[in-house]
């Protein structure tokens, strides 16, 4: 497992400079109160991971991966874990920067707001991952890119239709009733979706011929 994660990290490490620059830009914008771009940062890790799929596909890596011991299982799991790891580390850095800025500016730190906004971004990113990775394994990286755009637009369109036809206050009321349980339930559902996504990806890889 570790070998596959190391391979993925080695492939995306050239993008770490880009993340560094984005973090500096984020810190600057946050410090000057111009804009909060913290929501972009975890998404960047997914974009970087997608580039690793492109390298794999361009260099026929998957055909070799399946000849390695436990290659199918560990190869797929490594993609999910590396993504998770990148999102976690980048979020942690983003959080640290947010706290340092609030501390240096001597403003009252709104922990709840910082945590919920970051958690929301992480959950959103992981949801994209859980839809996107099985598609990449099934369709290949090029076709999956187009499909994911179509899915996002489709969902947005459906969402806007629903909002127009459903009384949204019912939903918000129901969510408010969950109270303190809302966050853990959301985390559990996200992790469950991620696990289902991994199982589907693994099934696709197991059926695939090279």
């Amino acid at each position, binding site marked *: 497992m570790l070998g596959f994660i190391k391979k993925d990290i080695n492939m995306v490490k050239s993008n770490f400079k880009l993340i560094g620059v984005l973090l500096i830009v984020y810190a600057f914008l946050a410090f000057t109160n111009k804009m909060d771009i913290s929501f972009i940062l975890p998404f960047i890790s997914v974009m970087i991971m997608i580039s690793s799929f492109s390298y794999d596909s361009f260099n026929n890596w998957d055909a070799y991966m*399946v*000849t390695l011991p436990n290659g199918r299982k560990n190869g797929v799991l490594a993609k999910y874990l590396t993504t998770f790891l990148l999102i976690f580390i980048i979020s942690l850095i983003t959080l640290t920067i947010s706290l340092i800025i609030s501390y240096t500016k001597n403003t009252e730190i709104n922990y709840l707001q910082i945590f919920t906004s970051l958690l929301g971004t992480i959950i959103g990113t992981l949801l994209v991952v859980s839809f996107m990775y099985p598609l990449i394994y099934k369709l290949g990286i090029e076709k999956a890119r187009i499909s994911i755009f179509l899915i996002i637009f489709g969902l947005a369109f459906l969402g806007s239709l629903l909002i127009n036809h459903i009384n949204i206050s019912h939903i918000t009321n129901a969510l408010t009733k969950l109270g303190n349980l809302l966050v853990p339930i959301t985390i559990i559902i996200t992790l469950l979706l991620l696990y289902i996504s991994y199982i589907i990806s693994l099934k696709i890889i197991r059926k695939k*011929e090279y």
Partner: protein
Amino acid sequence: MENILEIKNLNKKYDNFSLKNVSFNLPKGMIMGFIGENGAGKTTTIKAILNIINSYTGEIKIFNKSNIKYDSEIKEDIGVVLDNTFFPEILSPTDINNSLKNIYKNWDEKLYYSYLEKFNLDKTKQIKTFSKGMRKKLEIITALSHKPKLLVLDEATSGLDPVARNEVIDLFREFIENNDSSILLSTHITSDLEKLADYITFINNGEILLSKTTDELLNNYGLIKCTEKEFNSLDKNDYIKYMKNKYEYDVLVENKKEIKKKYKIEVIDKINLEDLMLLMIKGVK
């Protein structure tokens, strides 16, 4: 003799091609040349051995174990080079080492770096800066560095120049001697095999045409070059295939000595694998 690889009645159907009852064995400590023209079924057979294609029937045993049931365990002891390059070109040989040492239990880092040095491959440079031959060398080195019991090489020597091919062939010999392992080497460069292989398995159109020791093949099979009149005097059962050329007939025969005696032919040429392939595929009976 103990077999490292046993294939029995392997069948696999595609829309326009199928493997038909492919069966052969590779004994321990031996090198088998797996020959056939492009599209004959070499790569499909290799993929079935490695269990990376589905829905094939038949039985494949590696180290006396089912290749499906013991997939992961078996793969610890197999070294693989595929026909297409497969390492992400953004990685360096050092990156490859760092990954594979955590994938193979028996990965020998020291051996890997000594091979890199031997073949003058820079361990820090990205693979994209390597030539096609250098990439192939790196793949071969990688396949050897966990000291596998079976090496499966699909057209592994094809992208190499003659000097590099000789170096690699020496490496294979050294590997076999030191590790008591076996090699299945698919190639269409048959001259390499005459120097290296103990066994030759010949596949054509998804069927195994022959699987014999190289000595048996090169000593028993022969090529008669004769006139039409001489050809007509041959019994149909005494030759395998023939080809009519502009001025003469090329006739492939088995049991060279007996044929020589029976027809009082003075010279029956020793066959080489290239002519054997050509006559078996293009010749008629």
